[in-house]
């Protein structure tokens, strides 16, 4: 394992910069995610306008990988629709599982590409995917609610 490819500049900067680590005023969605085996815990906050993610932030504790991954994800989904976010999640998880390897398809992930090498570290995969699974959960719930409405 190459440590510098794991703790790349993108990761360490997202980990240190707390620009997405904040409460979102008037958030419509709060979703907790946790990873009991590591103790990582995050709370995702989304402000929606219809299907559009107007703003997003998170609070919580965790390792650099989970914190950076959360922050990167938030940068990526801000301003996107839930549908677009869903697609990003799929591609991201596909990248981590090595099911998607096509460079062009992955391009859309932007900074999140920095987490690509995590696939080599089974013990840290859970950290990288925590935020993404949490968002996925939220989107699923909303879809269900919409159906029931």
């Amino acid at each position, binding site marked *: 394992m190459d440590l510098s490819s794991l703790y790349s500049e993108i990761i*360490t900067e997202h980990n240190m910069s707390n620009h997405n680590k904040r409460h979102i005023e008037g958030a419509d969605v709060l979703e907790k995610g946790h990873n009991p085996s590591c103790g990582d815990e995050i709370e995702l906050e989304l402000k929606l306008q219809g299907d559009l993610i107007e703003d997003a932030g998170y609070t919580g504790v965790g390792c650099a*990988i989970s914190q950076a991954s959360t922050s990167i994800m938030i940068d990526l989904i801000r301003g996107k629709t839930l549908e677009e976010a869903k697609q990003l999640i799929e591609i991201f998880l596909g990248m981590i599982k090595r099911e998607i390897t096509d460079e062009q398809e992955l391009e859309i992930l932007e900074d999140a590409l920095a987490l690509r090498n995590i696939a080599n570290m089974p013990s840290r995969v859970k950290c990288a995917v925590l935020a993404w699974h949490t968002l996925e959960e939220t989107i699923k719930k909303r879809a269900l609610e919409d159906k029931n409405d």
Partner: protein
Amino acid sequence: MDKKIRNDFPTLDQMVNGCRLVYLDSAATTQKPLSVMKEIEDYYRSSNANPHRGAYSLSMQATQIYENTRTIIKEFIGAGKEKEIVFTKNTTEALNLIAYSYGMNFINKGDEIVISIAEHHSNLVPWQQVAKAKGAVLKYLYLDEEGLIAKEEIENKITAKTKLVSVTQVSNVLGTINPVKEIIEKAHSVGAIAIIDAAQSIPHQRVNVSELDADFIVFSGHKMLAPMGIGVLYGKEALLEKMPPFLFGGDMIEYVTEQDTTYAELPYKFEGGTQNVGGAAGLSAAVKYLQEFGMDKVQAIEKDLVCYAIDKLSEIPHIILYGTKDVEKKAGVLSFNVEDVHPHDVATILDSYGVAIRAGHHCAEPLMRYMKVNATCRASFYLYNTKEDIDILAEALADTRRWLGYGSK
């Protein structure tokens, strides 16, 4: 000399991520000496059979190996009788056996169970279960600043209502040595039974159950050079006698009819099903190794190492050490954090230097919460570790923050 010890442990002689393996996670599980591996193989090569059940030579040999291990354990921990030694698969099973068989039957509504806040989940969650099922109260002994259980805490918490006290002799997070003798005495003075979780003590220091006068003592083979899959429950005969069996099945019965069963005598009553004779063979070799090495020497080596480690790590900026620094009150377990770096990142970074430490809650979440930390890093030592190991740990630790962008790399 160090070299000679390490020759016994081939597992340590390997490269990890291009560096020599520095194994500092013996509190989780220890590496095994060649003599233990050989004993296991010898067993399977020449004596393997189901013990207690056969009237043929191989089965007699297997029985002898198994029962001989019982005697070896009895002597190692200073117990009075073979029948007080029950084999389990690990400490966790041993504690659950006590909880199901003693706890569920002899703890009643309103009784109090006292454990410490530093317990491993294995000595905590079973008592939550007993307390809930029986309407008993689960009370905690808290720690002072140094991470120790104070005398007053023992005096105040263990009362006439207390029926069962269960504490670890050595904390698997802080390495602190608890005053178990005082706790046992206090428990007995109020008529409570006392259980000692010796998973982190028996591998590392002389423990004599008769001197301690503990009612039950539990520990795991895999934390004392033996293979996985074998553990020990010591219990006083009178208590074991009055307890119902835990696992029901082959070899633990006297007579079985369609609707009724009577049970075998001790210790067989508690050993249902085919036992792990290969594990017992390995355990006997492990104890032999420890006895030949000398438990005093084991303890001396670890004390030396923990002293050295405390000094070394204290020199590194941004390192927070937890628990007492008084090595008279501490075994070879060191919990610490690196400021701004999550323990999991520390472990990953150290791994790239070949250094194996553990990061997380160490199966002691209530202690983490009590200490107001989410997780810690833990380095733990055993007889095969050296000062050089600690030098490598310290060097790697000094680099850790830089990997995450704090300071210049």
